């Protein structure tokens, strides 16, 4: 029989529980995220008020953003194992968001109109491309509303949930992965037309 000490036994048990916790978010993200929000929103606001002077509404919004980032990290497989409870992770994301908000506020206060020409001189052309990309994503998100079903679900499974054509075929009852690829091409073409209209 393999012997393990109590500390490593507890550690293993905790790791198992935390993987099960992440699985809960993967299985039913909407419900698990809403539950996380309901359970820890108050505690987050209380905790953050102990060291920063933002009001409750601002902190609630930061907590919402932190939950969205937490979910994206799970979905994009950047977060595959938790070292502590899920809310501890979300609190640390929230803390970073608060600090980044403070940095942004300090910058806005420092940069008056006089500082603008200098800022323009230091303009990074890469930022322009990023802004164009953001605008495209913004416009695309509106066009996706008009795309309708089954195209939206198919594209969401493919680009958001990172599913292969074979998995999509099984999930959406298509006869084969080739049919999914053909359908995906049609959907992308339709979206392209909507985008350039």
């Amino acid at each position, binding site marked *: 029989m393999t012997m393990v000490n109590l500390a490593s036994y507890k550690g293993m048990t905790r790791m198992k529980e935390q993987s099960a916790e992440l699985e809960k978010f993967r299985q039913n993200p909407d419900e698990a995220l809403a539950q996380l929000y309901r359970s820890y929103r108050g505690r987050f606001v209380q905790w953050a008020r102990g060291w920063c002077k933002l009001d409750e509404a601002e902190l609630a919004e930061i907590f919402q953003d932190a*939950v969205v980032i937490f979910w994206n990290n799970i979905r994009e497989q950047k977060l595959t194992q938790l070292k502590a409870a899920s809310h501890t992770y979300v*609190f640390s994301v929230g803390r970073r968001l608060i600090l980044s908000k403070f940095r942004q506020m300090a910058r806005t206060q420092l940069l008056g109109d006089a500082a603008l020409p200098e800022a323009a001189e230091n303009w990074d052309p890469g930022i322009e491309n990023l802004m164009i990309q953001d605008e495209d994503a913004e416009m695309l998100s509106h066009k996706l509303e008009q795309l309708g079903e089954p195209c939206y679900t198919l594209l969401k499974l493919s680009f958001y949930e990172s599913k292969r054509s074979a998995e999509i075929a099984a999930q959406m009852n298509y006869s084969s992965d080739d049919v999914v690829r053909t359908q995906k091409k049609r959907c992308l073409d339709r979206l392209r037309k909507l985008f350039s209209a």
Partner: protein
Amino acid sequence: MKNHDEQLIEQYFAKSLDAEGQALLQSRLEADPELRTEFEWQKNVAEGIKLKEDRRIKALLQKEEARMKPAEQPRLSYRRLSSIAATLALLAAAIWFVLPHSGSSDLPFSPYPDTFIFRDEVAPVVNQATDAYKSGAYQEAAKYFATAAEQEPGNPNYTLYQAISLIGSEKYEQAISILSPLAEISDNDRIPHVAQWYLAFAYYKTGKNDQAIRFAEQYLENQQESSFKKEAKQMLDLINKK
């Protein structure tokens, strides 16, 4: 787009490209501008879907936020508030004198605050237990605290909260059997005294007034824990009036 290129892009978005596949995709994108345009288009689509889904999830959380906030009440003037308070006080006094006092039903259950079990690094079941406890789902909380107590047998806090949750769900006899040993702990400032109060309360609710008096008096004598002193005195008054 060639079939092979199509599969490479599909693998990229499915996050299943290995290092070799990534290098191959990179070289294909550099060699074929049309493929690069298609790839960039699909990346934009992915960004557009992410933005849409982020907004959907945020809207879901905002809905939760709205549900959590109490509906805004119309503002009342100080004068109006004073008059309502005076009317309510008169009404309460009238009810107190007119209605017969009904024993145990006039001493409500008050949960003990969960402040000394909050730690960041606890097992998920403890968080489930505290969430259920805070939301008043005592039956559920009792089950979770029982599991937590099994996982960490040396920690009497979980057992104490299990017993308090049992009282919250009106399972007084079960609570008494758990609280009795806790009331005897000698090397803790708080737990035995909290246990004494809840033992008094559980005995009172089951009509065992002698035991209720014994534990309420023990609780009142202690100098370390005072959360329920007022309730303990009220309980003794109520028993004496019977």
